[in-house]
């Protein structure tokens, strides 16, 4: 009887929390207006509180360093750099994650927008009257940038959910697969030891 109770206890303690998630951190960055927001979390969704954040430009120069708040987030002004930013999140106890953030110019499109602006001009040219550069005092560029900001804001929750999902991808088949691998290796080891005799 006692034996069964002990066995049950062990099985329950070992199996019950398997549904709970695992340990790794992820960092997620998005742009809103003139700021870059950073959010970090452990793979079970807990925010990385008070984690160090470092931002580097493409040449590896450090542009910014700071710490996340109690919600695991941080916002900083858009740096005056071009190309890609490397954002590194360092949480306590040797956890580290990084992400690459592609810079887009905020506000009215300037040099970096030349390509899309060029296309727009070509489209506009045949019928200049139907789509004037300035409608009700708002330039096309401004509309573009407003729309871009609004769309970015609107898809933000989706992006965040995606990033979280990405982070929580410890799947049941991975777990079972890993156990299988380990038991298989054990079998190979035994086989080799037994053959030696």
């Amino acid at each position, binding site marked *: 009887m006692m034996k069964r109770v002990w066995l049950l206890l062990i099985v329950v303690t070992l199996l019950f929390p398997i549904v709970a*998630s695992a340990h790794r951190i992820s960092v997620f960055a998005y742009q809103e207006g003139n700021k870059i927001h950073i959010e970090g979390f452990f793979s*079970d969704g807990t925010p990385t509180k008070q984690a160090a954040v470092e931002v580097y430009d493409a040449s590896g120069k450090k542009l910014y360093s700071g710490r996340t708040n109690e919600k695991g987030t941080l916002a900083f002004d858009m740096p005056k750099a071009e190309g890609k930013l490397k954002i590194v999140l360092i949480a306590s106890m040797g956890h580290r994650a990084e992400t690459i953030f592609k810079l887009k110019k905020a506000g009215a499109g300037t040099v970096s927008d030349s390509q899309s602006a060029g296309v727009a001009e070509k489209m506009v040219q045949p019928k200049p009257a139907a789509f004037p550069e300035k409608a009700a005092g708002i330039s096309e560029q401004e509309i573009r940038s407003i729309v871009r900001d609004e769309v970015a804001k609107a898809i933000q929750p989706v992006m965040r959910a995606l990033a979280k999902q990405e982070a929580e991808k410890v799947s049941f088949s991975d777990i079972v697969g890993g*156990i299988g691998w380990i038991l298989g290796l054990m079998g190979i080891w035994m086989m080799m030891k037994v053959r030696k005799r």
Partner: protein
Amino acid sequence: MHISEGILSAPVLISGAVAAAGGVAIGLKKTENEKIPEVGVLSAAFFVGSLIHVPLGPTSVHLILNGLVGLLLGWAAFPAILVGLVFQAILFQFGGLTTLGVNTVTMALPAVIGYYLFGPAVRSESEKTALVGAFLCGSFGVLGAAILVAFALFWTGQSFLEVGKMVVYAHVPVMVIEGLLALFCVAFLRKVKPELLEVKR
């Protein structure tokens, strides 16, 4: 307790790898054929244990089970934990392949030390002594790993005391849970399969 890639400097990574290789070699040599299944099972338990997340304390922590692995395996904890870590790194992206050596040492070394410190108590005739020893061994594995992690991070320029305190505090709940887990396991094994613990009769 897994140190991620890109944090430690090359000398720390290399010394960790060398130490881990030494431990694994001793572990493989010392393991008798009859012990191999046990090594496999405990390696698998270690592999799964890290998925068991403890939602207490300032950061997110998980079970390590190294105290229990050490208690039952002794030096064979090194190969068992290395194999578990390899698959955690590949399948779950815990830690990383370059930090395998360091992570193996931080978790397997306290396991082996725990085996020598508390093994005699666990093997003793008195059930009480055995259970206390088991609890301490389970907790000691976590504590030792926390201290070694702090030590490894110390070489990156972080303050040893500060990081150490932080890691140890964060793992107090895990230490209690793993102590209890080791206690249950030993109590169970003493009743069902005392020869696994080499209990003196």
